[in-house]
């Protein structure tokens, strides 16, 4: 016997509970983050974010794979091959490209398609919208800035000769991993969103983002190498700012030719503050 089911799809009035502002904000964040990663979109939109995520995990997977495959005799040597403090520097370029791909997708389509007018006519305000988009940028970015070193830490614990001893010895690395990853994610999220907020065209946002990060980095590198006592000119290297801030959270002796950690952190703060102001400026409006 063939069983069927009848669905009543007539319009019904809804008198049930309604969620508040936080639920609406979370909806904005969740949908935006998923779509930026290619979810609910065609396969072409999925390839680049997935590939870059895999590349970001690649060093961790190699190290942990080798430790799993080879004898415990070389395990201790492999444990120090990829220090947590070096992770930001090693995959910094991948994170930059990931941010270039993800952040324009969060804002440009809304401006291009005029969807902002519709969103602001719902329960969410302009402030909620911006907060939701910042969170939507942070979550995917933290996938590649926090998760890989966190997995490396878990793997190191697992493969250590004395796991409990490793945890006791490296307890301070847990907050450092989270803080370093969050610092990177905050930087790329705010800067990426600020640039994306200036245009409705994704291609322009990507071009602008790359130009903003790469051109000053090249100029800063050339100037600092050719001008005597010009080490502070390295601060112009915008792309290097989050990496240095992430590294400064670990007890690593900085390069004598580099600006101080404080200078890097101030530069990081200034860039995030300016980006936040750009976002506020772009989404201000006559709205209660």
């Amino acid at each position, binding site marked *: 016997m063939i069983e069927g089911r009848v669905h009543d799809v007539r319009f*019904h009035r809804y*008198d*049930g509970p309604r*969620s508040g502002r936080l*639920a*609406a904000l979370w909806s904005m964040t969740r*949908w935006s983050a998923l779509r930026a990663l290619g979810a609910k979109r065609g396969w072409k939109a999925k390839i680049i974010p997935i590939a870059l995520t895999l590349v970001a995990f690649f060093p961790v997977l190699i190290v942990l794979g080798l430790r799993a495959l080879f004898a415990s005799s070389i395990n201790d040597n492999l444990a120090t091959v990829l220090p947590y403090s070096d992770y930001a520097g090693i995959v910094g370029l991948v994170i930059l490209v990931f941010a270039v791909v993800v952040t324009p997708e969060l804002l440009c389509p809304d401006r291009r398609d*005029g*969807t902002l007018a519709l969103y602001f006519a719902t329960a969410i305000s302009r402030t909620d919208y911006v907060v939701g988009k910042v969170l939507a940028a942070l979550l995917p970015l933290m996938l590649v800035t926090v998760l890989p070193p966190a997995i490396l830490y878990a793997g190191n614990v697992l493969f250590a000769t004395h796991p409990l001893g490793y945890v006791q010895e490296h307890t301070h690395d847990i907050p450092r991993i989270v803080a370093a990853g969050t610092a990177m994610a905050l930087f790329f999220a705010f800067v990426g969103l600020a640039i994306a907020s200036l245009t409705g065209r994704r291609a322009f946002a990507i071009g602008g983002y790359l130009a903003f990060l790469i051109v000053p980095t090249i100029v800063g590198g050339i100037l600092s190498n050719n001008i005597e006592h010009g080490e502070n000119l390295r601060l112009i290297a915008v792309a290097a700012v989050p990496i240095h801030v992430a590294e400064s959270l670990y007890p690593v002796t900085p390069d004598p030719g580099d600006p101080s950690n404080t200078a890097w952190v101030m530069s990081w703060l200034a860039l995030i503050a300016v980006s936040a102001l750009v976002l506020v400026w772009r989404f201000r409006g006559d709205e209660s």
Partner: protein
Amino acid sequence: MVDVTASEQPLIEAAGVTKRFGEVTALDDVSTSVTSPALGLLGANGAGKSTFMKSMLGLVTPDSGQVRVLGMDAAHQAREIRRMLGYMPENMCLPMGMTARDFIVHMGELRGLPRRVAVLRASEVLFQVGLEEERSRLIRTFSIGMKQRTNLAQAIVHSPSLVILDEPTNGLDPAGREEMLALVRRLSAELGIAVIMSSHVLEDIVRTCDAVVVLRQGRVAATRTLADSSAASEREARVVVSGDTAAFVARLQAAGITATVRDDHVLVSGPDADTMLRAVRDAAADMDAGLRELRPAGPTLEDELIGDLS
């Protein structure tokens, strides 16, 4: 949820609302109060319809005056109002890269529906607007009519008490316009959702609304109840017959219809339009007289509204 279609709660109360954009006065001392379940805002382009609608949603803050929507102050309770209202903007503002279903679910969530409810209601409203077969297609592949219907679906997905439609027939071909007008009429007539609809097309308002506020250069030119106006204008007719006019009038009077001979025509009036027209038809047939002219005696509703607009 408030059933505003069945209550005397005013949908909109505006008192002395003025809004200027630089040198341009978009709304100039607008005052009105409307209880009809379907209200039309009629006016030429630039008359202030969209600004008035945005002030209802709290998207535009008036320079002076107050707008109350469903009893709430639009300037201070904008968030609460927007949760209860649906809004269909004038311009196309749909995310082209999303499917209709995903978009409607997303808008439902943004308007306060729990996720599971939003998914169910998205199916319901897409069925109601005739897009159930296309729900999984990207919006960019839709025709203009389908996009407008998607736009309407997002406005009603959260079961609002009141839906604000800004020029919903814009850009539609005749068939699409017919479908949209039928959908709009259904909202207040069958689904229990009060409607405020703007248009610069008189016929759109007459066919879908119970009352109309005519805006002209930012001011309220007239407020009319359409049912009463049209009934009044249809109860009287101006008739010209070939043959014995006096006998025709006598036959009408015998049928209980008021008929008076004027210069070149007969002025006929009855208790309602149907009775009056049936009596005219029967009298003409009985007298074997030709009906040379039969039209409303006074200015029609359209004549009055056009007068208000100009």
